């Protein structure tokens, strides 16, 4: 039982990371109806930036914040230079899938070009310490990930519900044509949406990197887990991304511990989750059901 509790906490800590990437995916999906397959690679790229700042002697937490700013700028530039010229993704979703795959390839290779192919080490943000609860040692890092996720959720909630730009973003997500008619600069709103989505990647990457180091493959598995998370939670639901992320984190940590043939393939339960949810309840737990008019 103590073991189970420990796996649970580890799973929650990992789930917090999936939820962060999931939040970025949901923000872009809500605003533009586009599934950004390069989300994980943007996060990987900004994590390299965080690492570079730490090498320059800047403390990790400050580097991470700088990484967040860099991520915002990268998101803005990508939206302006690459995505914007394609027009409304609702019209041609598959073209934009291929475009984001092009971005995936490009960003991945660009990171290798700049930082090489060696794995870089990054310290845990909350140190290596742990505390005991009911006789089970729990790493501060895992609890820290949950706390940081909570902060992110609050910040996102404040931006979406309490600021003018957030109101504009919700309006564009709901109906971009009408928004344009009432004078909302739709294109600029989408640009800021991309910036926001890309900015949290640095945080997710900084947490992921602790266990496996920073290299260009940092986020590939995390991306799949995050996709599983938003599939479960619903593509257009921020709450769904968080709940889905935590559930995926727990499932992919706990199931392989008890099912032998899955021990080395934690991806398999995540995949099964994606498939089952899409077949049984395609809108996810919290998503809006889409009804197509024929």
């Amino acid at each position: 039982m103590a073991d189970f509790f420990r796996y649970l906490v580890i799973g929650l800590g990992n789930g917090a990371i999936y939820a962060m990437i999931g939040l970025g995916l949901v923000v872009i999906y809500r605003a533009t109806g586009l599934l950004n397959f390069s989300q994980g690679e943007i996060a990987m790229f900004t994590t390299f930036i965080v690492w570079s700042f730490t090498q320059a002697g800047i403390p990790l937490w400050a580097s991470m914040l700088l990484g967040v700013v860099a991520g915002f700028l990268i998101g803005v530039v990508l939206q302006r230079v690459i995505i914007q010229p394609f027009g409304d993704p609702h019209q041609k979703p598959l073209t934009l899938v291929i475009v984001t795959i092009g971005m995936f390839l490009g960003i991945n290779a660009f990171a290798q070009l700049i930082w090489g192919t060696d794995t870089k080490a990054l310290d845990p943000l909350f140190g290596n310490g742990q505390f005991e609860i009911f006789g089970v040692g729990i790493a501060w890092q895992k609890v820290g990930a949950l706390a940081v996720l909570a902060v992110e959720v609050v910040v996102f909630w404040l931006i979406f519900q309490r600021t003018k730009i957030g109101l504009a973003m919700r309006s564009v997500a709901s109906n971009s044509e009408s928004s344009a008619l009432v004078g909302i600069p739709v294109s600029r709103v989408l640009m800021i949406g991309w910036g926001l989505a890309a900015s949290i990647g640095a945080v997710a990457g900084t947490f992921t990197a602790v266990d496996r180091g920073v290299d260009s493959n940092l986020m590939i598995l995390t991306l799949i887990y995050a996709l599983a998370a938003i599939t479960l939670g619903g593509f257009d639901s921020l709450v769904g991304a968080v709940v889905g992320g935590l559930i995926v984190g727990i499932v992919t940590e706990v199931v392989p511990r008890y099912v032998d043939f899955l021990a080395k393939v934690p991806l398999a339960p995540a995949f099964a989750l994606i498939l089952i949810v899409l077949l049984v309840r395609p809108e996810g737990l919290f998503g809006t059901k889409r009804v197509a008019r024929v």
Partner: protein
Amino acid sequence: MTDIATPTVEPMTSGSRGFDSQRALRVAPVVVILVLCIVLPLMLSEFWVDRITGWIPLAIAALGLNLLTGYNGQISVGHGALYGLGAYTSAILVGDQGWPLFLAVLGGALVSFAAGVIIGLPALRIRGLYLALVTLSVAVLFPELVRQAEGLTGGTGGYYITEPQVNSRGVVVDRPIRLEAPEWTGLANDQWRFYVFVVIAFACFVLARNLVHSRTGRAMIAIRDNEVAAEVNGVNVARIKVLTFGVGSALAGVGGGLYALWRTQLFPQSFTLLASFYFLVAMVVGGPASIIGPAIGAVFYGFFADVITPELPERVKPATPLILGVLLIVLMRVAPGGVVGLARTTMARFAVARAAPRGADSESAAGEDETASISRSEE
């Protein structure tokens, strides 16, 4: 889901003109490719013949992806997994079961066909973005499963298609099983291998062409352009979609099987997400919804990977996918029809210009209009 489709431009041709230049222009690339296929192995060194042989499996797999995505509008980001499945199945059938080589490739194709149908069934409910998401996960999952099934696939250490053989000094060594030229041909092994691969590839391309031009093919295209309209017109959407998934996967399996025969050693890292992405690159560069497109794309990719990349300085080599990524984005923007699309548009302009020799002022404008508005029916 019509957006990847090439706006097919098929200007009217007057059959009474004697020499049908439109038809000639369409047949010319096929003739050029066939002549090159016959001549090249006789001219190039063994090294290069071997390299070029390796481009053929890619062309066949990209053809399968093109049937599925280009003609039927079902996006697969995970075709590398089906390619890998075909490769490992064929390799194990040869290496462990001792099957004849071609039968093993057929076996790999059948297994990939079955896997394609199994993925195709849920794809009836899961479409568009969601299908991209599922196939992406399949692509990431596949190498993990190969690593896990170590007893069968050799895991990370790789699978070698070999048989024990006593060598000239009486020592038993593992010798790779490869295609070898029969005596009567008088060809070197590498040349024989190339010709055999070309014949198989040619068969696959003719098969795909006939399929696309058949009733089933028209149904595939109709589903891509408007699924509801297709259904209303009596197309059995479910049957066609699952069938296309199966055939597209079987072709990936054939490609994979040939790859296994060519390399004689397989590693899980050859079948990652990147492999799937490169099939997409080959398809988009050559031209989605065209038969010859994947072959052109595969040649482009092969040329890029085997000829250009080795010339680059060591420091810049990791950046080659960067070039492919940028190319993918730029092509989707300026030429979503790939090389074939560009050729078709150019031909259409040429035809329009010739048809209206007097309206010199309106020529270019008419050309623009034509390419945008000519019906998109396929042939």
